[in-house]
């Protein structure tokens, strides 16, 4: 069952020289009980997508398409209506989760204040229970964030983000700064949230496919603001179809190198500028199998397997 349906979503940034088309016609769904992984190089539109759900702010703007959550198109909601949906329906563990809590307020106060904003009282028994789930003692409540280590702060943030049992939890690059064993630990905790039905579904965003493999049920690969491939995790990893996905997988051995710092191995060139993206397939100038048609027309969606779709001219169904 789909919790969230995104259809032909376009999110642009207003700049002096025109609109930067950071998300340009993206279609996907989030199903109940699944973990949807979203992967791609930095600048592919991952962060824009996240921010559009939780922090839509100037100069970002909605340029088209719909996002249906429980029969309501949230792109048409007012600021106040959106405010209610955030945290209660869609919540986030941000990229900066290690310093997401105000340093001069006790954790207990932060929790109380955020809950009050949504008209709720704090059930401290529940809070303590949740803290225990992430291996934090209840003493943490009466401490200031500065007294905790980075990891402890991240776990406290995880508890705060999920207190209202959101339908969808977005985990944004939360493992990037961690070492491998801590990564594993964080992922186990997230899985715990899923098992205990604290969150219905999860969106896990990363540039690191090897981590995604441990947690995601389905995966969506983004390139330059467009979906290139979407399908079951297992199948995409074992049988990638799109040339870009293949390149991304090929770069796996160096999994902890950030794409920002190191360009994709195996394919020369940069992702295109999104101010004036090229016509046709956005990957064509780096693609090893590109034909003339790829430069002219946008690639069609091709079904390549059960629940597995690819946007490419050169792929057969």
């Amino acid at each position, binding site marked *: 069952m789909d919790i969230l349906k995104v259809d032909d979503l376009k999110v642009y940034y*207003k700049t*002096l020289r025109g609109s930067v088309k950071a998300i340009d016609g993206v279609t996907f769904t989030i199903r109940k009980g699944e973990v949807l992984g979203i992967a791609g190089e930095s600048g592919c539109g991952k962060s824009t997508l996240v921010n559009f759900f939780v922090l839509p702010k*100037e*100069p970002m703007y909605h340029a088209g398409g719909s996002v249906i959550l429980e029969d309501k198109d949230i792109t048409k909601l007012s600021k106040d209506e959106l405010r209610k949906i955030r945290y209660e329906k869609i919540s986030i563990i941000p990229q900066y989760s290690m310093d997401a809590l105000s340093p001069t307020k006790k954790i207990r106060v932060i929790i109380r204040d955020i809950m009050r904003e949504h008209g709720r009282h704090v059930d401290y028994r529940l809070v303590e229970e949740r803290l225990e789930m992430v291996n934090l003692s209840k003493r943490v409540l009466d401490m200031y964030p500065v007294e905790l280590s980075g990891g402890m702060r991240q776990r406290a943030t995880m508890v705060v983000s999920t207190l209202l049992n959101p339908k969808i939890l977005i985990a944004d690059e939360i493992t990037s700064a961690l070492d491998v064993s801590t990564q594993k630990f964080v992922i186990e905790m997230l899985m715990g949230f899923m098992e205990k039905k604290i969150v219905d579904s999860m969106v896990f965003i990363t540039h690191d496919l090897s981590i995604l493999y441990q947690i995601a049920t389905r995966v969506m690969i983004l390139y330059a603001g467009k979906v290139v491939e979407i399908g079951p995790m297992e199948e995409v990893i074992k049988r990638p179809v799109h040339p870009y996905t293949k390149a991304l997988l090929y770069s796996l051995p160096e999994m902890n190198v950030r794409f920002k*710092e190191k360009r994709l191995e195996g394919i020369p060139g940069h992702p295109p500028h999104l101010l004036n993206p090229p016509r046709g397939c956005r990957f064509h100038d780096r693609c090893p199998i590109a034909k003339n048609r790829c430069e002219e027309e946008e690639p069609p969606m091709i079904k390549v397997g059960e629940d597995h779709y690819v946007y490419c001219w050169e792929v057969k169904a």
Partner: protein
Amino acid sequence: MKEWLKKHDTLYFMLTNKRFVGGMIFILSMVTLAILGPWLAKIELRWYLENGVKEALDPTANIGIPYSPPSSQHWLGTNSFGQDVFLQLVYGLRSSLLIGIIGGGLATFIGLVVGFVSGYSGGMIDELLMMLTNIMLVIPTMAVLIIIAAYLPYRGVMIESVIIGFTGWPWTARAVRSETLSLKSRGFVHLARISAVKPMRIIFGEIAPNMLSYVFMVFILQFGGSILAAVGLDFIGLGPTRGTSLGLMLQQAVLWNAIQLGMWWWIIPPGAIITALVAALYTVNTGLDEAFNPKLREM
């Protein structure tokens, strides 16, 4: 290409920023007034010059009738001694601008070097320099200026600028240090370091260009700060022993009861010109901040 666009961007935002442009226009017109002042005074005091009063262009000469309000002969009136207020104002503005440039420049330079060395080298040197900076920060600068100036029998604009420069640097040093630390921790400097580039090359090739805009803003603030410090010193009676300055004008005005006598033409212009000048400098600074810092830009 990206670098070029970025530079282009900043320039664009700078030149379209109302605060920057407005403030800059005012400052430049003040500079023009200071430069053309003596020439304007020739027009103002033509009556005296035509009648052979040679010392008419000396701001300390008692040429006119004392206590006269503004007129076509004395654009801003005369003071209790019959000195021409406009002439004094023009010369005062000159010395204020000079002090701003020299004092502010010196303070910026010292602050820059201390902060840079401190932040870049770290360790013992950092500890010592920051100790020195903190000490200088707590000692009230004005008090030090007072005691130094009080014992100097002859004081010129130069000496005043230099002592202001030597006492005004600490906060700049602190700010520059933290800026250097944040730049140092960024990737490109690290990259240069591990590839064994010489420290000087890193400083001037990598860090300095990134700090240029910042330094410019610091200088503007120091420029205004030095002008204010000098005016205060002059007012206390520790300004230049010869010639005139805006602070000295105001000190004389207070000592000779210009307030009680309602000689507004003597008390308003000198302070107004300082206030406007310093406010314009602050405005340029905020304008630059908006231009250099994308977060503050208004779309």
